[in-house]
C-alpha cells in the first residue's frame, strides 16, 4: 500500500471515531500544551529579564558588603570613603566613575496623595553610571551633595501617582519622610522588572538621605557601590583594580578573604540566564511526563482497536495485504493521532502563553511569551515519535495476526 493511502485511511479511521480519538489524544494535547506553554513563558521571561538587566546600564560593576562564598567575620561596611578611594585615576585607570547608593523605604507625599516607595540616596554621577535619562529638569550636582540639599528626582510612575502628571513639576515640593524636598527633575520611563521598578523610585542626594531619611550607625556607610568601567572590554581590569583598592582600604591582610563582593552585568546576566533555564527545563520535564502518559493512552486504544478490527485485518490479509501493509496502516494511525494531539497541544500551549503574558502585563511585569519555530518543530517531531513508539507494539500485533484465525474472529 502506498503511504498516502495509509495516510488517507488513518485520517478516515480517526474521523470515524471522533470522540474516542479526541479522548485518546487528550494526554498528548495536555503534555505538548504544557511543554510549549512552559517553554514559551520561560523564553519570554528570559528575554524580559535580560532586557531589563541590560537596560540598567553597561560596563557596571556592583560592589556589595560581605562575601557570599567564603566566611568573613565582621565584614566592614562600604562607605563613601571607599568610593573616594576608588575614584583614584592613578591607581585605577580603568575605572571611569563611582556611584554610591544608600537606599530605603519611605513615604513620599504631595498634597493629599502619598506613596510608600524606594528612596535612592545616590551620588551625582549615579544617573551617568546607570544611564538614567531625565524627561525634564536635570540630575542633582556635586554641590547638592556637599550641601545636603533637599532636592529630588522623581521616577515617572511615582510622579504620575502623586501629582497626576509627569511634566511641569520642576520647583514643586514633595515631602519625603515628612521633610520637604524640591523637585529638580523627572526621570524618563525605564520599565519595571522582576527585581525593582525604578519608575516608582525617588532619587535624592546621598547626604540628604543620611540626614533626613535613613540615619546610619556607621557614618558614611552605603548599601552598595557602582563602578563604571571605561568600556566593556576593561571590566576585568576595573574589577581587579577596584578589588586591590578596596582590600587596602579595608586593611585586609593577604590571608584574609575579601569582605565585599563584586559582580558585573555579565555575571548577573549569566546567573539570571541559568536560573531561568533550569526552571524552564525542570518545568518542561515535569510536563513531558504527561506526554509519556499520553503515549501509553494511545497504545492502549490502539490495542483495543486492533482487537476490534481483527476481522478487518484478516480480510485485508485475504485481499493481499502484506505484514508491512498492516503495520504501516496501524503505525500511521497512531502517529497521526499523536501528531493531531501535538498540533492541538501547540495551540493550547500558545493560548496558555498568551494568558500568562496577559496576567503578567496586568500585574506590571512585561512578559511576552515567545513560541520559537524550534519548539513547535520539536513538539511535532516528539509527538510523532511518541505515536510511532507507542504504536509499534499494537501495529506489530496486528501485522502478525494469522489470516485464518483473524477471519474466524467474532
Amino acid at each position, binding site marked *: *500500500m*502506498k503511504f498516502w*493511502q495509509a495516510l488517507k485511511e488513518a485520517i*478516515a*479511521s480517526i474521523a*470515524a471515531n471522533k470522540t474516542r480519538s479526541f479522548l485518546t489524544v487528550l494526554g498528548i494535547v495536555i503534555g505538548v500544551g504544557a511543554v510549549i506553554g512552559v517553554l514559551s513563558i520561560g523564553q519570554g521571561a528570559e528575554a524580559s529579564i535580560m532586557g531589563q538587566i541590560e537596560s540598567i546600564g553597561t560596563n557596571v560593576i556592583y560592589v556589595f558588603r560581605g562575601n557570599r562564598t567564603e566566611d568573613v567575620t565582621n565584614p566592614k561596611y562600604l562607605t563613601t570613603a571607599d568610593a573616594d578611594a576608588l575614584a583614584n585615576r592613578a591607581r585605577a585607570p580603568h575605572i571611569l566613575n563611582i556611584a554610591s547608593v544608600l537606599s530605603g523605604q519611605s513615604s513620599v507625599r504631595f498634597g493629599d496623595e502619598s506613596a510608600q516607595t524606594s528612596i535612592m540616596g545616590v551620588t551625582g554621577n549615579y544617573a551617568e553610571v546607570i544611564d538614567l535619562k531625565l524627561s525634564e529638569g536635570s540630575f542633582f550636582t556635586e554641590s547638592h551633595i556637599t550641601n545636603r540639599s533637599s532636592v529630588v528626582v522623581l521616577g515617572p510612575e511615582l510622579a504620575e501617582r502623586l501629582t497626576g502628571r509627569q511634566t511641569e513639576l520642576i520647583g514643586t515640593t514633595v515631602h519625603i519622610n515628612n521633610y520637604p524636598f524640591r523637585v529638580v527633575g523627572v526621570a524618563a520611563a525605564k520599565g519595571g522588572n522582576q527585581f525593582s521598578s525604578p519608575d516608582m523610585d525617588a532619587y535624592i542626594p546621598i547626604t540628604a538621605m543620611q540626614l533626613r531619611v535613613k540615619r546610619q550607625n556607621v557614618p558614611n556607610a552605603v548599601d552598595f557601590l557602582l563602578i563604571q568601567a571605561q568600556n566593556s572590554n576593561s571590566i576585568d581590569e576595573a574589577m581587579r583594580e577596584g578589588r586591590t583598592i578596596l582590600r587596602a582600604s579595608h586593611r585586609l591582610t593577604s590571608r584574609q578573604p575579601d569582605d565585599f563582593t563584586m559582580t558585573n552585568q555579565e555575571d548577573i546576566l549569566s546567573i539570571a540566564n541559568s536560573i531561568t533555564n533550569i526552571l524552564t527545563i525542570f518545568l518542561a520535564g515535569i510536563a513531558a511526563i504527561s506526554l509519556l502518559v499520553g503515549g501509553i493512552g494511545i497504545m492502549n486504544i490502539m490495542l483495543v482497536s486492533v482487537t476490534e478490527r481483527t*476481522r*478487518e485485518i484478516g*480480510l*485485508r*490479509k*485475504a*485481499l*493481499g*495485504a*502484506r*505484514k*508491512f*501493509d498492516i503495520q504501516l496502516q496501524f503505525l500511521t494511525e497512531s502517529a497521526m493521532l499523536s501528531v493531531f494531539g501535538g498540533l492541538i497541544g501547540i495551540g493550547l500551549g500558545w493560548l496558555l502563553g498568551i494568558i500568562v503574558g496577559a496576567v503578567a502585563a496586568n500585574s506590571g511585569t512585561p512578559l511576552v511569551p515567545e513560541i520559537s519555530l524550534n519548539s513547535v518543530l520539536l513538539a511535532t517531531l516528539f509527538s510523532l515519535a511518541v505515536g510511532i513508539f507507542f504504536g509499534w507494539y499494537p501495529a506489530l500485533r496486528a501485522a502478525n495476526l*494469522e*489470516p*485464518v484465525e483473524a*477471519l474466524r474472529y467474532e
Partner: protein
Amino acid sequence: MELTPQAVKPVIDVHNLTKDYYIGEIVVRALRGIDLQIFPGEMVAIMGPSGSGKSTLMNMIGCLDSPTAGDYYLDSLRVSDLHDDELAIVRNQKIGFVFQKYNLLPRIDAIENVALPLRYSEDTSNMRQRAEEALKSVGLGDRMRHKPNELSGGQQQRVAIARALVNQPAILLADEPTGNLDSQSGKEVMELLIKLNQQQNTTIVLVTHDPTVALHAQRTIQLFDGLIKAPEAIA
C-alpha cells in the same frame, strides 16, 4: 473430467496435500492426503459434513494457510512453500474471496470496498474506474456510493463478489456464499455466480453444505474425514 480436454493445464493442482493441527499434544489431521485438479472455467462445489476438512482445504486453496506436506500448484505456480508475504501477493493477484458474512468494511462505500484489493496490488492505476466496472458487472452500477448498511444482504454479497473479481483473479473462492441470505437473495447470488462462470468463464470453487447450491456446480467433491470421497461428475 470428461468435460475438460487433457491438453488444458489445471488452474488448481493439488497432490497428496496434508494438514495437521496441534492442539496441545493432540494432533488433529485435518487433511490426510488430498489430490485434486480444477481446470479453468470449471465450477466446482466442495461439500462435506462439519469437521470433514472442507474449510481447511478452502484455506489451503485460498493460500490463507500453508500445508504440512504435499504440493499445491496454483496457475502453474508452486505455492505450497511460499512465505507469508509471497502468499499475500498470490492472494491479491490470483484469488478472489467471497465470504459467508460478506466482510465488507462498514465505514467505506461500495466502490471503495471493491477497490480495496487494488490498493495492495502493484498496479494502482485507475482504481476507481476498475472498481466501477466490477460493480457494474454484478449489476450494482446504481449503488456505488452506498455504504454496506444501506444495502440489502444480497446486494452486499454482490459487492463482495465485485471485490473478488476486481483484480481479475485466476479463481473465485466462495465459502457458503448464500449461507447468510434469504432464499430469494441466495438464488440471485447463485444466478450471478453461474452467469460469471458461463459468460466470462470464471473458475469458481464453492464450499457449501446446501445440496441445492451444489446442484448448480458441474462437479461436486465430497470430503469426509480429511479425504476426498469418490469424486463424481454431475452433468
